[in-house]
């Protein structure tokens, strides 16, 4: 509320909607966006890219993280790549990727390069924290590799996987939209933002920003909801059993 107030006062004082439109103008622009037909297409394109890159980061980061945690050579091989990944500015990744790939792929690729190290490092460090005593117990009690993976490694890693997923998820939205701004694929929130900026439609740029914030927030909420799902399922199952009695 206070932010809205400051925004309103600032916009009134400046009195130049190209530089800072009033909240009312912005919300009007937002309403215009929301009523324009290809909106779903624009949003879904961005959401689709974000989800796909997140899933790729999640799968590859977890798998390679576990592998590198157990095998020194994999760690030694990936370490320099990781350092480069972390040190490269997001924008140069996007620009380079644009030279190599089509505009639709660039957001995926850039988001992967930015998000993967976060996920990977979390999981790899998680592997180091797996209790050697429990590991020894699984060896003595004849656990197969599969059993060890499902009953020791993955449960031990769950906190690290969640932390890594959370961090990489919020990064994915930003990188995907940034890549869309620079590469302007046919559909995408970032593309629209770029178009609006070129046309000096500042209210529309802000409106798209609101859409982006909304998407990120919904994404985080959904992620948390998914995390709570197993607990709810268990509770539901337990109450079902109670009722059957």
């Amino acid at each position, binding site marked *: 509320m206070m932010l809205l107030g400051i925004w309103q006062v600032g916009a009134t004082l400046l009195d130049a909607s190209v530089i800072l439109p009033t909240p009312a103008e912005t919300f009007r622009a937002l309403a215009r966006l929301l009523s324009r037909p290809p909106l779903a297409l624009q949003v879904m394109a961005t959401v689709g890219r974000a989800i796909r890159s997140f899933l790729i980061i999640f799968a590859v980061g977890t798998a390679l993280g576990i592998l590198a945690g157990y095998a020194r050579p994999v760690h030694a091989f990936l370490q320099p790549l990781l350092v480069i990944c972390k040190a490269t500015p997001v924008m140069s990744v996007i620009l380079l990727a644009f030279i190599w790939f089509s505009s639709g792929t660039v957001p995926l690729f850039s988001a992967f390069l930015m998000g993967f190290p976060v996920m990977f490092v979390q999981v790899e460090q998680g592997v180091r924290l797996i209790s050697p*005593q*429990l590991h*020894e*117990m699984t*060896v*003595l*009690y*004849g*656990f*197969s590799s599969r*059993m060890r993976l499902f*009953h*020791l490694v993955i*449960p031990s890693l769950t906190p690290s996987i969640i932390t890594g997923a959370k961090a990489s998820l919020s990064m994915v939205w930003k990188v995907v939209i940034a890549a869309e701004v620079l590469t302007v694929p046919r559909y995408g929130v970032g593309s629209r933002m770029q178009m609006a900026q070129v046309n000096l439609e500042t209210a529309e740029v802000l409106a798209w920003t609101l859409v982006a914030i909304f998407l990120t927030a919904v994404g985080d909420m959904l992620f948390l909801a998914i995390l709570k799902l197993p607990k709810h399922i268990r509770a539901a199952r337990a109450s079902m059993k109670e009722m059957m009695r």
Partner: protein
Amino acid sequence: MRAQHLDKTYVVAGKTLPVLEDFSLIVPTDTITALVGPSGCGKTTFLRLVGELEQPDRGSITKNGKEEGPISYLFQEPRLLPWHTVLANVELVLRPFGADHHERTAKAMEFIELVGLADYAKFKPEQLSGGMRQRVAIARAFAYPGRMMLLDEPFQSLDSSLRWSLVKAFLRLWEADKRTTVYVTHDVQEAVLMADTVIRLSSRPMRIIERHDIDTPRNDRSLGDPAFIALQAAFYT
């Protein structure tokens, strides 16, 4: 089980640490042999060699047909999987031996009942006391078809009344299903109550100082018995 001329040396921070030097020991089949010795004398190392967690530098360990195969191990800590229930912790070790889920669950429950935790089968380890967790570990060790049992001071961290009740629980299960057992401890009382043979060990490198065979049936043993007091005294000198 026959251990012959075992050597084992560790290198710690550049220094060599001879733990076992030409160590030999015979453990009769289907008996409990207690190894009593000071901390750090190499008892645990010996267990790890028998359990094939490590290889000796020299020497050999031979087991007979009844002893060859999987091994049930009781550790100083319960070492339960914290995300699984008591039941799942016991049931899991039965999986490599097939049988369907119902049979495995039934067998796991049977042992959980035998250690007196039937009402706690659905609990997670963190919801149990230390003694109860160690009971679960005992149930797991007996449910698992280990051909030998290796015990590494499993009752040490518990207070004395709890310790005796666990020792009793262990012996009850053991009498019903005898397996060659090596039992490492530094508690002489526990050793003389539980073992068929008590072996006194020196500090590192570990040697056998003396060997006592105890013929008194386990049920008739009491720590107040003069013979036992004398035996305990021998260990403390």
